[in-house]
């Protein structure tokens, strides 16, 4: 479903993604793990057509995200690391606009929208403004919205960041069910190793823009002789703290937290 070969992306003198190659099969739940600044989000941005690769090839459902962006965009749903809901609109309006943007016919839009909101336990709050929602509800709404147009691939970039264990557990239960019933391929990133261990069929670990290991959770543990995925992850990526620079994006993120937008 996804094929990435020798992918490179540089920003000035920094190489964020450095010769990355991997495959994700149809229906698979694939976890992309790595420390901050390892290149996870950059890779997702390139696969989701909002960033151009410096070199290398990308393929999503047999199509090229760079040259066939419109066709590719129809085939995936995405939940970015930073929120992309309109908090001044209601949950239902967010869903409805998404349906129009993806040319989902009105009856389908309404039926599937209702089903998804019920599934994610947001139906009762559908007419409330998103700004009155908790972090967990917003995340659930974003995932529901991303699934409205029945995508073949669902990208989830740190979807559970900042959520309590109950919300995380509920979110993954629903996503795994959809993965089983609708055969949607799930591509996720997370810093919670227990999540990756639980939901991912296969895991790739990326560090400093390069893939350092790929395999199932059991294979990674075996390979490193560790008994937990977290221990395996630390063996593969070291214990040095990353992300020491504070970017303009981080600054905006901090301000946004203050304003609770």
């Amino acid at each position, binding site marked *: 479903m996804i094929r990435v070969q020798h992918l490179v992306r540089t920003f000035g003198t920094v190489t964020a993604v450095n010769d990355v190659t991997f495959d994700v099969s149809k229906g698979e739940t694939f976890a992309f793990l790595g420390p901050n600044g390892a290149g996870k989000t950059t890779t997702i*941005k390139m696969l989701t057509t909002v960033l151009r690769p410096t070199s290398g090839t990308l393929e999503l459902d047999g199509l090229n995200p760079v040259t066939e962006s419109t066709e590719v965009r129809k085939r995936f749903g995405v939940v970015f690391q930073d*929120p992309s809901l309109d908090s001044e609109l209601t949950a239902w309006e967010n869903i409805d*606009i998404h349906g129009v943007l993806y040319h989902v016919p009105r009856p389908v839009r309404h039926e599937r929208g209702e089903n998804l909101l019920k599934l994610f336990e947001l139906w009762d709050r559908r007419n409330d403004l998103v700004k009155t929602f908790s972090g967990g509800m917003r995340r659930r709404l974003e995932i529901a919205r991303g699934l409205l147009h029945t995508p073949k691939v669902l990208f989830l970039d740190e979807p559970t960041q900042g959520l309590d264990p109950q919300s995380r557990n509920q979110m993954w239960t629903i996503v795994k069910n959809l993965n089983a019933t609708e055969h949607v391929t799930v591509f996720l990133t997370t810093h919670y190793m227990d999540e990756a261990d639980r939901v991912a069929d296969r895991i790739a670990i990326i560090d400093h823009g390069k893939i350092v290991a790929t395999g199932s959770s059991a294979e990674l543990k075996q390979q490193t002789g560790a008994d937990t995925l977290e221990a395996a992850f630390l063996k593969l990526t070291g214990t040095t703290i990353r992300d020491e620079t504070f970017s303009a994006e981080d600054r905006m993120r901090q301000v946004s937290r203050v304003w609770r937008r």
Partner: protein
Amino acid sequence: MSVIYILWLREVKKYLRSKAQIVASLGTPLMYLAVLGFGLGPVFRRAGEGSYLQFMAPGVIGMTVLFTAMFSGIAMLWDRQFGFLKETLVAPVPRVQIMIGRTLGGATVAVLQGTIIFAVTLVAGFRPASVLAVLVAFLVIALIAVVFSALATGSSLKEMQGFQMVMNFLVMPLWFLSGALYPLQGLPAVLAVLTRVDPLTYGIDGVRGTMIGASHFGVALDVGVLLCVGVLFVTAGAWRFSKIEV
């Protein structure tokens, strides 16, 4: 079309829901109208130019439209990282439709704000020539709104500091150089050139020409310039929009 419509509707809905913001954004134009309108009135009259309120009311309407249109565009700054813009950027629709939807939405909001201020100027004592004159003037106001909404939407700024930059180096100069507050004849050479480069000058001159029949350039030239600049800004903005990366 449905994409342009839904994005336009989104802007208008949000505007109608933000009652507090509507009131707050009327503060600055009201202050200009009250303080300058009545404060400079006696001087203007002594200089033999007639009623200052009559003269500056179209300018204050133009200012309201400029500020509202630019602000809704500048909101994109935030939107790009933490908001809805990304949702539209990954949607399988041509970017030009997204740009036009947002531009028209922002322009509509600006015209609505301009209408409120127009009503206020009437209360303050502003007297347009006729009802027909007002209707024609609103076509010019709509053009101003589209021009600056397209400029702000299409400039696709990246960082937070951009907001201060845009305010101090774009919005304020556009406003002060537009001849909204002073007549265009007999200006020092440098100022005369600068006012003629500012598209808002033609917008406000057009509103003045249609509403009170006092135009410096002639309404036809005003509308011609606004149309050209509008086409330029929409085209350039659509092109920039198609290149946005997140």
